[in-house]
């Protein structure tokens, strides 16, 4: 996490809390910690993976980056400029550079707006070009997003497209301003498995041809491995492990990372493949508040230490760091045999 001079985006100690109101079933209100003191820095042109289960705060992180949400603590900078509390015109200028693809393509397009209007919207709001220029750019960007011939799509409404096509429209709209940073929030999780390869290819194209930096949010370790240069694993709003994608996946260090790898579908002749077994099937009683965020589910936790002391970041190898008291003990697992496939 050094080399601040070439980082494009930096999150420093960013936290986000949601206040929930009590209702008929849940008495009183409470505070949900969606993100807790998150530090991240992105390098220009990389695809950075944010991996975790649902509810772990991935979407919140993405929404903070595009400033749909304001952090409660900490600072976000883009190219060294503080954007934590931007408003008005400044925010609009910022969003020319930072765009987002949302998780659910069935929900993220206005049902009453044609594809042409939807994709042209960022151009219109930012007063780019005249109608003819805009149309040309819309056609070009639809083509980039794999919707060709683009002329066939611009006259349609979202409900006339399949989920995969809709998501590609959403990507087209996010890249029409050629942003330098793109947040892709689980862009394939609502789609058929067979569409993901297309979406991955388009995202790679966006990085390679436009030089955009991409935050790729996913719950799939395999997808993160395929697409990302570096990844961060997030659990209940806390980052727990971070490093180059290959390193984190081949020799995971945090017990939660290991659990995610264990949970990846396996098939073929996988009888001998070892599992890490770091995830408790039933949670143990909570420890003190200050303890390790993974304590309740961690099979390796030591009662006294882990329930009471928040771990420190430890360097595991090279750039791989891990938030665990026992980080150094993380080891490489032998590669599975040929006939066994892990993925999905």
């Amino acid at each position, binding site marked *: 996490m050094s080399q601040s001079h070439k980082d494009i985006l930096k999150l420093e100690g960013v936290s986000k809390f949601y206040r929930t109101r009590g209702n008929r079933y849940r008495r009183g209100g409470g505070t949900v910690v969606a993100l807790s003191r998150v530090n991240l820095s992105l390098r220009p042109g990389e695809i950075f993976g944010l991996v975790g289960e649902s509810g772990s705060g991935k979407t919140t992180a993405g*929404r903070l980056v*595009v400033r*749909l949400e304001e952090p409660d603590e900490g600072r976000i900078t883009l190219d060294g400029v503080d954007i934590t509390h931007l408003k008005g015109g400044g925010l*609009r200028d910022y*969003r*020319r550079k930072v*765009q*987002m693809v*949302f*998780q*659910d393509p*069935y*929900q*993220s*397009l*206005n*049902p*009453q*707006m*044609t594809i*042409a209007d939807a994709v042209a*919207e*960022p151009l219109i*709001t*930012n007063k780019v070009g005249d*109608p*003819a*220029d805009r*149309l*040309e750019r819309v*056609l070009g960007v639809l083509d980039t997003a794999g919707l060709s011939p683009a*002329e066939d799509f*611009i*006259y*349609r*409404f*979202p*409900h006339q497209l399949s*989920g995969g096509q809709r998501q590609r429209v*959403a990507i087209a*709209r*996010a890249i029409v301003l050629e942003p330098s940073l793109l947040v892709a929030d689980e862009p394939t999780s*609502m*789609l*058929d498995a067979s569409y993901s390869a297309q979406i991955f290819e388009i995202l790679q194209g966006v990085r390679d041809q436009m030089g955009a930096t991409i935050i790729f949010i996913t719950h799939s370790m395999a997808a993160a491995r395929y697409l990302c240069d570096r990844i961060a694993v997030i659990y209940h709003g806390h980052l727990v492990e971070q490093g180059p994608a290959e390193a984190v996946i081949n020799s995971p260090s945090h017990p939660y990372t290991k659990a995610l790898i264990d949970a990846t579908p396996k098939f073929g002749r996988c009888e001998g493949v070892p599992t890490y077994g770091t995830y408790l099937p039933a949670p143990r009683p909570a420890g003190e508040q200050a303890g390790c965020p993974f304590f309740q589910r961690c099979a390796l936790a030591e009662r006294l230490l882990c329930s009471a002391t928040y771990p420190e970041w430890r360097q595991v190898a090279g750039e791989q760091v891990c938030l665990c008291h026992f980080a150094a003990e993380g080891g490489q697992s032998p590669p599975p045999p040929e006939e066994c496939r892990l993925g999905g």
Partner: protein
Amino acid sequence: MSVQQATLQSLKAGRRALWRQRLAENWRVFRGNLLGKIGLSLLVMFGLMAGLSYIPPLIDPMYHPMTGVDPLVVKSTGPSLTHWLGTDFMGRDILSQLLAGARVAFMVGVSAAFMSVVLGTAVGMTAGYLGKTTDTLLMRLADMIMVLPTLLVVLMLAALFGQLSIWMIVLMIALFRWPGVSRVIRAQTLSLKQRPFIDAARVAGASHTRIIFRHIMPNVLPLAFLYMTFRVTSAIVIEAGLAFLGFGDPGTVSWGMMLQWVWKTGHMFTAPYWLLPPGICISLITLSFYMLGRAMDEVLDPRLRDETQAG
């Protein structure tokens, strides 16, 4: 450049074709709905009546619904060759009055409904989108107006200010009937505001004005339109009630007015040819707008046109 212009042209043409296709699709769903077909046929009939209402006075001034008196008739008479539905107590032609009444019903119904729906939609969208204090204030106001019994209040106003003109009545109905619409539109706006496509628009740089007019409004308009058909019904009924109770515009011939004349001149039980036509017309026109509304409900039902999820 000309290539670009050509593409732009074709974009416009494509967009027109798209809307045509959409209309055709809606029409197809509508046609499949029996209630809708009945309602629409009835409305076409009333529309024809309203259109035809201009003809009798042209044939002979004695067919003027308000001022035309048949000099040969001195009391209410039943149907005859010169007066197909008979005449009223002073010799005016009932059929001409009935036709003129259709015109007034449409005018009152549609304009009052239009105004109340425009007002209700504007208030509902503002309250829903801005939220907080604005929302609270507007909705409290709506509640206050909603609990007022419209007919009674308009009656009191009429008693206070003397006879009201038909446009005043339309305005009153509009002013008293928007809260229901605004509640529905507000609820819809609230739920739309939470939808991810609004977030997507914000990320695309859309201003609040753009979000309201380009994203929220097109999604509430179908609902507003639906409410309009129901509001027409209530406006017609209120006007008829007012007129029947003697607080209508004395310068217009509405069906309610006709009923009032029947009543006031004591022909309630003696002249069915005079009593029944306006009574039946009021019931039928309200019924037909209601049926139209129900059919629209189906046409606009998102479940029938919208997406299914992956998987």
